[in-house]
C-alpha cells in the first residue's frame, strides 16, 4: 500500500509535468491556425519546443544594474504557474493538491507570479519594463475580480469553492442548463483572452513599443530567463483553457483512475481544449487590437456578465 502523501506528490508531479509538456504545443497550434487563416504556412507544430530549447542553451544576459529581484522574477513566475497546475483538475475529476485550497488559492498563486514578474521588470529601471509592468498590472487588476466572480458563479452551482470537489459535483449533477452557465462562460472567455495577452487586449506577436503589454514587461530578458517566462505563460494559457472546459463542459472527464477512463478523458480534454483554441484563434484573427484605454471597457463587459451570472442564480 502506497501512503497517501506519495500518491499526492506523484499525481502532482505527473500533472504538472504533463501540462508543462503540452503547453508549448498549444501556443504553436494557435500560431499555426492563425497563420492558416491568413493564408500563410505557419510554423511547424514543434516550433514551441525548438524555441524553448534554443533559449535554454543560450547564456543569460543581464543588465549590470539588475539585482536578485530581476533574477528571481522569471523563476517565481514559472514556479507559480507550475504550482497552479496542481490545483486544477485536468484529466481526472480530482486536483492533486485540492486539499491545499480552491479558487482563491488558484487566483492568488497566479497573482503572486504576476507580481514577481512585474517587480522584476521594474528592477532594472528601464522605461520599457516599467511601462509594461504598469500596463500588465492595470489589466490584471481589472480582470481578476471578473475571473473570481465567474468562478464563484460556478462554485455557487455546486456549493463549494474547491475546484476538485466542484468538478466532481458538476459531473454528478450533469449540466445544470441555467442561464448563469452561459453568462459566466462568456465572461470568463473574455477574461482568458485578456489574461493570456491575446488580441483584442494584447498582441503576442508584436514588439511595437506603443502596443505591447506583456512583451514590454519581459523585453529585457534573454536566454534561459526568457525561456522560463515564455514557458510559464504557455502553461498559464493551457491552464485557463483547461479550467474553462472542465468547469463548463466536464464531459468525458475521468472519475476513476483506470486506463480506459483516462484514455477517454485525454481524448475529450484534448478535443475540448482544441475547440476553445480554435475559438481564441478566430477571435484573434477577426478583431483589431483595442486601444489600451478601451481595454477596461471590454473587461467591464466581462465583469458585468460574471456578476450577472452570479446574481441570476438568486433571481
Amino acid at each position, binding site marked *: 500500500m502506497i501512503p497517501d502523501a506519495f500518491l499526492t506528490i506523484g499525481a502532482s508531479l505527473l500533472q504538472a509535468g504533463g501540462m508543462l509538456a503540452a503547453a508549448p504545443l498549444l501556443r504553436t497550434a494557435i500560431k499555426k491556425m492563425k497563420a492558416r487563416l491568413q493564408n500563410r504556412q505557419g510554423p511547424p507544430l514543434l516550433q514551441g519546443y525548438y524555441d524553448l530549447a534554443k533559449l535554454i542553451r543560450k547564456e543569460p544576459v543581464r543588465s549590470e544594474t539588475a539585482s536578485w529581484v530581476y533574477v528571481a522574477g522569471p523563476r517565481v513566475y514559472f514556479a507559480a504557474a507550475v504550482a497552479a497546475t496542481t490545483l486544477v483538475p485536468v484529466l481526472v475529476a480530482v486536483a492533486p493538491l485540492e486539499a491545499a485550497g480552491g479558487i482563491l488559492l488558484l487566483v492568488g498563486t497566479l497573482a503572486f507570479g504576476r507580481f514577481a514578474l512585474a517587480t522584476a521588470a521594474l528592477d532594472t529601471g528601464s522605461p520599457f519594463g516599467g511601462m509594461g509592468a504598469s500596463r500588465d498590472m492595470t489589466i490584471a487588476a481589472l480582470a481578476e475580480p471578473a475571473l473570481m466572480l465567474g468562478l464563484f458563479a460556478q462554485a455557487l452551482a455546486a456549493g463549494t469553492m474547491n475546484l476538485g470537489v466542484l468538478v466532481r459535483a458538476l459531473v454528478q449533477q450533469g*449540466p445544470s*442548463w*441555467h*442561464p*448563469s*452557465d*452561459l*453568462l459566466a462562460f*462568456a465572461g470568463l472567455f473574455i477574461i482568458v483572452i485578456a489574461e493570456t495577452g491575446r488580441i483584442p487586449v494584447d498582441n503576442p506577436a508584436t514588439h511595437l513599443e506603443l502596443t505591447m503589454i506583456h512583451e514590454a514587461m519581459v523585453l529585457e530578458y534573454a536566454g534561459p530567463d526568457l525561456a522560463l517566462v515564455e514557458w510559464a505563460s504557455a502553461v498559464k494559457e493551457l491552464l485557463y483553457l483547461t479550467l474553462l472546459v472542465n468547469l463548463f463542459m466536464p464531459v468525458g472527464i475521468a472519475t476513476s483512475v483506470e486506463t480506459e477512463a483516462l484514455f477517454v478523458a485525454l481524448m475529450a480534454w484534448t478535443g475540448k481544449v482544441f475547440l476553445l483554441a480554435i475559438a481564441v484563434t478566430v477571435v484573434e484573427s477577426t478583431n483589431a487590437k483595442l486601444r489600451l484605454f*478601451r481595454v*477596461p*471597457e*471590454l473587461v*467591464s*463587459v466581462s*465583469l*458585468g*456578465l460574471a*456578476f*450577472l451570472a452570479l*446574481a*441570476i442564480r438568486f*433571481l
Partner: protein
Amino acid sequence: MTANILIFCAAGMLVTAYLMVGQKALFTTIRLYGVQSLLLGIVATTIAIAESRPELFVTAALTVTLKAILIPWFLMRTVDRIGIHREIEPFLSVPASLLVCLGLTVVGYRVSTGFQEGARGVGHHLIGVALSLLLIGLFLMVTRKKAITQILALLTVENAVFLVALGVTSGMPLIVELGISFDVILAVLVLGVLVRRIVGRFESMDVSRLSKLKG
C-alpha cells in the same frame, strides 16, 4: 431537452445584448444583432418541434431570413456606403451603461416573477430575459447618438417582444406575425434612408445634431 435549448438560447440573446452595450464598432454590433436573431429563430424552431405547431416554422424561417441575414446585410451596406464605422461617444460611458443594464436585468427578472407563467421554470427565464432585453434596448436607444445603433436598439426591443410572444403565449396568428415582419423591414429600410439623409446633411450620424434644425 426543449427547456434546456430554450434557456440556452435566451441566455445567449442576453449575452449578445450585453456585448452590444460594450461594443463601439458598428459592424460587430450589427453581427451581434444577427446572432441574436438567429438564436430567436432557434427558439421558434424548438417550440415548433416540441409543441408540434407547424405555423411556427414559418415564423422561424421569417425571423432567420429577415432578421438574421437580410437586415444585418442591409445595415452593413449602409454603414459601408457612408463610411462611418464607429460609435464615437455615447452619452454614458461603457462601464456606467453596463452598470445600468445590470440593474435593468435584475428589474426584468424580478418583474417576470409577477407573471403567472414567469414564477418558475423555463417561463421564468424566457420572460426574465425578454424583459431585460426590452429594457436594455430602450436604454440603448436613449443613450446612443448614432442613428444605426438606435435602429439596432429598436430591433432588439422587437426581438424581446417576439421572445415573450413565442415563449409565453400560444403564439400570435400568422397574419399578425407577417404584418410585424414587414413592419420591421419597412422600418429598417426607411430608417436606412433616413440615416443616409442625416449623414448627407450633417456629415455625421450623430442624431443629437438634429436639434440644430430647430429655428
